[in-house]
């Protein structure tokens, strides 16, 4: 009671300050990103070069694409821990289909192999969505089982070994550019735009946010909860598969015990640092992109200044907590 009274009295005096804090709260990730870039421009040698951007563009696509799917899933109040394993499965399926018979593959054309890999991602996503929506298992456990099993499945597909891939198309994926911008980055950007439109302008977008806000209310309002959830997890699965293909092309091989490892954590970090609350009901697409770029740039920056990886992991941890703290919903709103 007393705090409310003090709040009302102090309001006129602190009004400007509150405006500033709420402005910062809503744009925390962009401000942090701007600061990191500014720091680099001033203090990091060779930062203001096209090479830096190109390196970033080559590194970013997998985590960006996976984060887009993760943002949608988190928007429904769920979480998808299986994305890294899904990347490995997609990579293994690609390898199985495209590798020649001499390395236990089927030697099929690359287009078919890619289609099958995407289909595998879709299957994983539909499976997750079904367990969550129909089985009503909590998303964290439902997708945990695939995190545990998925990489094993991928290893079974490739026979437990790394499969080197020499298909020319993978080289195109790895090196292709349009006006000096990596093809894969354009794919990632296109996916971000599509997801952004999906969230703001489509029925699916409204529905998934409604489910995340209050599942029971969404049911009462006539939202088809099951099909919406299955669709969202399916999208996440397909995006993870796309990311798995890009990672495979970059590695020039399918290595199920490496591809997508810990990707679930990077993606969740990007989404959360980007200001999307973990409890759902809101999706911030641009924030997620900024979150992913911020975390990657932070790593690059610390590396450029010869900070050991161990310290950079500790800094990352602090940034995650700080970002979530700054962007937490204000009490009056909650």
């Amino acid at each position, binding site marked *: 009671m007393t705090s409310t009274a003090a709040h009302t009295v102090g309001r006129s005096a602190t009004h400007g300050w509150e405006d500033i804090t709420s402005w910062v709260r809503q744009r925390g990730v962009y401000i942090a990103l701007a600061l990191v870039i500014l720091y680099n421009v001033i203090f990091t040698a060779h930062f203001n070069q096209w090479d830096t951007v190109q390196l970033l563009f080559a590194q970013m696509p997998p985590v960006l694409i996976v984060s887009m799917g993760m943002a949608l899933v988190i928007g429904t109040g769920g979480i998808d821990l299986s994305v890294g394993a899904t990347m490995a499965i997609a990579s293994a399926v690609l390898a199985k289909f495209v590798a020649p018979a001499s390395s236990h593959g089927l030697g099929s054309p690359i287009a078919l192999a890619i289609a099958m890999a995407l289909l595998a991602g879709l299957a994983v996503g539909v499976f997750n969505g079904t367990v969550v929506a129909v089985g009503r298992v*909590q998303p*964290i456990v439902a997708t*945990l089982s695939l995190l545990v099993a998925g990489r094993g499945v991928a290893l079974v597909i490739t026979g437990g070994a790394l499969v080197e891939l020499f298909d020319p198309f993978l080289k195109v994926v790895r090196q292709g550019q349009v006006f000096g911008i990596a093809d894969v980055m354009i794919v990632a950007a296109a996916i971000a735009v599509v997801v952004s439109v999906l969230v703001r302008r489509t029925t699916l977008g409204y529905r998934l946010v409604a489910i995340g806000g209050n599942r029971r209310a969404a049911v009462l309002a006539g939202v088809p909860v099951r099909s919406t959830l299955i669709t969202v997890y399916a999208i996440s699965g397909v995006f993870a598969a796309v990311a798995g293909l890009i990672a495979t092309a970059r590695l020039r091989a399918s290595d199920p015990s490496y591809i997508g490892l810990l990707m679930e*954590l990077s993606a969740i970090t990007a989404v959360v640092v980007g200001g999307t609350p973990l409890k759902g009901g809101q999706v911030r697409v641009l924030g997620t992109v900024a979150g992913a770029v911020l975390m990657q740039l932070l790593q690059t920056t610390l590396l450029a200044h010869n900070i050991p990886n161990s310290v950079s992991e500790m800094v990352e*941890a602090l940034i995650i907590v700080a970002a979530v703290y700054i962007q937490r919903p204000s009490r009056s709103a909650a």
Partner: protein
Amino acid sequence: MTAPAEFAGTRRTLSTRSVTSLVSRNGAFGVLVVVMVIGFLTVPSFGTADNLRNTALAASFLAIISAGMTFVIISGGIDLSVGSLYALAVILSADMSSHGSWAAIGVPIAACAFAGLVQGLIIARLRLPPFIVTLAGLTGIRGLVFYITKEGNSHPSVPGKPFFETVSRGSFLTIQNPVWIALAVFAVGWYVLNRTAFGQAVQAVGGNDTSAALMGLPVRRVKVIVYAISGVAVGISGVLSTGLSGGGQEARVGNAYELSAIAAVVIGGTLLSGGVGSIVGTLFGITLLYVIQNLIVQGFNLNSYVQQVVSGVFLLVVVILQAVFSRRSETE
């Protein structure tokens, strides 16, 4: 005036809770019995005393971690940092062993308790989601471990310290000490959770922290303490592991332990939504995971990755059954 009504309400929720937990707990126990009978009958090398003893020893380290995790999950939280914390305990214990056995035991446990405490404080005081805070813990503490080990290049080992090593390597009634210590941890955990006011408070906070606060329970303190408990459990586990191995472990040790611990807790019948759970179930859960793993290795000669698939599928079956059970008890 309202007191009798309140008591009646409490009794009723307690009885529905115990019904749910009984069903889930017996689920894990039942499966364990079936799996072990199949093991005894079909795999000759499974039933030998040596094999059972070794399986119990292997399971004891994650069992202790899972006991702590049970407290956190029943309180409605989650602790993703346990794998990294385990590495911290293992490395610190080996590092400190040159200062004597008590340093090798005390410092890691204190450090892990402190790390748990800090995470708990951030979660309770700043009201940040446990998933995020302990995710940061997973990253940051692993970074700390790599920092201590000079980017993973140093592997501290234990220069023969009789007491500290006998704790881990000794045995009693032919069963190794870590197994007894794990059982003791579960006994204490069971008592604290089911027979103390604090344990009841943990369950109440996990059920609904707003109503727990309205009942006058110290919600924040409970939340802080469960993460400290998890830290202490991880510390004990790490110290025992270093005592057994004599140090020299990689900085990556304990990677993904959080997943196994969460799986064991969930298989044991504790709901991730909090409020309902059984620490005895967790003991069955972790035993089940290790028995299955052992059977796969001993009897079916399957690769380690097929083993992953089997444990994943198994986890899935259990959680789906659990979801069905808990829904049934909800409607009853």
